[in-house]
């Protein structure tokens, strides 16, 4: 007991130092003000509002699918970056590197597995999130644009998965991407050009691997983060998570009010 008290005291002393207070300006505490400041003064967290309606917290409304999708994305970034340390995006070195990651690198097998299963989970969760949002009607006014942003994020997720699929450079990867890029060449008029630009050549070779690597590790994640930020911001600006009972009375009884004002204006 004596030791734990000292640890507490130590942390309290730490928190009252000038250095600490220059970093965490709002200070700690459990008052409503402190909790609001913890959100509002944090550059990452002030995307959220400081308060939310209690009705939106329930699990049954959303099954937390949006949050879980974000969670898989974070896991993918956290596992993907270490994987980049041992991976050369050149053919056929990429395959040797993937084997190295599985057999030679400490924790390599675990990281690769976690990356792969989180990727599958993310695709599944993003579809589930879309269907759940649709079935509870959370796409209606004023949330239409956020729904469109969500579809954009769905496409980015599928592209991320598709570009990542090629990187191990095994038979599974090579032929899945060959088939997929040949579908792109079926686009009328521009198909062959699209195919050529996508692969950086006429076939899936070293150029294609490098392009997919840059797309997968740099361009698409940055684009995804950009749209995720907009997506979260729109949730807040559209009035928070949708819950039918939380909508303003006017929106809920729109038809009734328009009828009654029509008669009254006579």
């Amino acid at each position: 007991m004596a030791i734990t008290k000292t640890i507490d005291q130590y942390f309290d002393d730490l928190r009252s130092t000038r250095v600490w207070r220059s970093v965490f300006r709002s200070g700690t505490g459990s008052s409503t003000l402190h909790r609001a400041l913890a959100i509002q003064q944090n550059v990452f967290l002030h995307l959220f509002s400081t308060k939310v309606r209690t009705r939106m917290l329930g699990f049954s409304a959303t099954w937390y699918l949006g949050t879980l999708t974000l969670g898989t994305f974070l896991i993918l970034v956290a596992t993907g970056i270490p994987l980049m340390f041992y991976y050369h995006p050149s053919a056929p070195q990429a395959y040797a590197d993937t084997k190295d990651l599985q057999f030679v690198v400490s924790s390599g097998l675990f990281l690769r597995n976690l990356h792969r299963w989180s990727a599958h989970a993310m695709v599944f969760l993003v579809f589930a999130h879309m269907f759940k949002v649709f079935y509870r009607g959370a796409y209606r006014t004023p949330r239409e644009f956020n729904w469109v942003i969500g579809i954009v994020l769905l496409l980015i997720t599928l592209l991320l998965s598709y570009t990542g699929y090629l990187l191990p450079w095994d038979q599974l990867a090579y032929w899945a991407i060959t088939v997929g890029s040949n579908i792109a060449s079926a686009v009328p008029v521009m198909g062959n050009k699209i195919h050529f630009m996508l692969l950086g050549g006429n076939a899936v070779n070293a150029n294609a691997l490098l392009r997919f690597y840059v797309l997968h590790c740099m361009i698409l994640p940055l684009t995804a983060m950009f749209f995720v930020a907009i997506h979260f911001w729109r949730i807040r600006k559209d009035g928070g998570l949708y819950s039918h009972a939380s909508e303003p009375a006017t929106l809920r009884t729109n038809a009734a009010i328009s009828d009654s004002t029509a008669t009254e204006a006579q």
Partner: protein
Amino acid sequence: MPDETKPASSDNAVDRRKFFAKLGLGSLTIAAAGTAAFAYQFLEPNVLYEPSPVVNAGKPDRYPLDSVTLDVNSGIYIIHSQEGYFSLSAVCTHLGCLTAWKPELNLIACPCHGSKFERDGKKIEGPAPRPLPWKRIWLNDDGDLLVDRSTDVPPLQRDSFVRV
């Protein structure tokens, strides 16, 4: 006074919350420490795809008496002196540039910052902090000279030479 009437239970309530908070933070700390340990292990490569430090310098009769021969690909000098054959590292001890043998000046010179060394590795002048190290040299079964660039041997000692 509400505090005085129930001191025991209010203590218990605080203790339980604090207990779980400490349990949570404690396990988070342990998890973080474990993650850090695994991350460190991950970042240190277990397998290197670098060339072997052992270099085959060929037959000794390639190197005439009193000659200083630089092999640029492996970064070593093979020197045949009166006492026998020995090998110096050609990498300047200052900041790692490849030195060169200057026969007209009878010394080894580094082009980067002007360090100069004698043919036994001793530093003459320049910013290099240490003399050029002697590397382990021996004869293999085929009669080839082998040099291990990863092993230093003391300079000018009997066993640092190879006598043929």
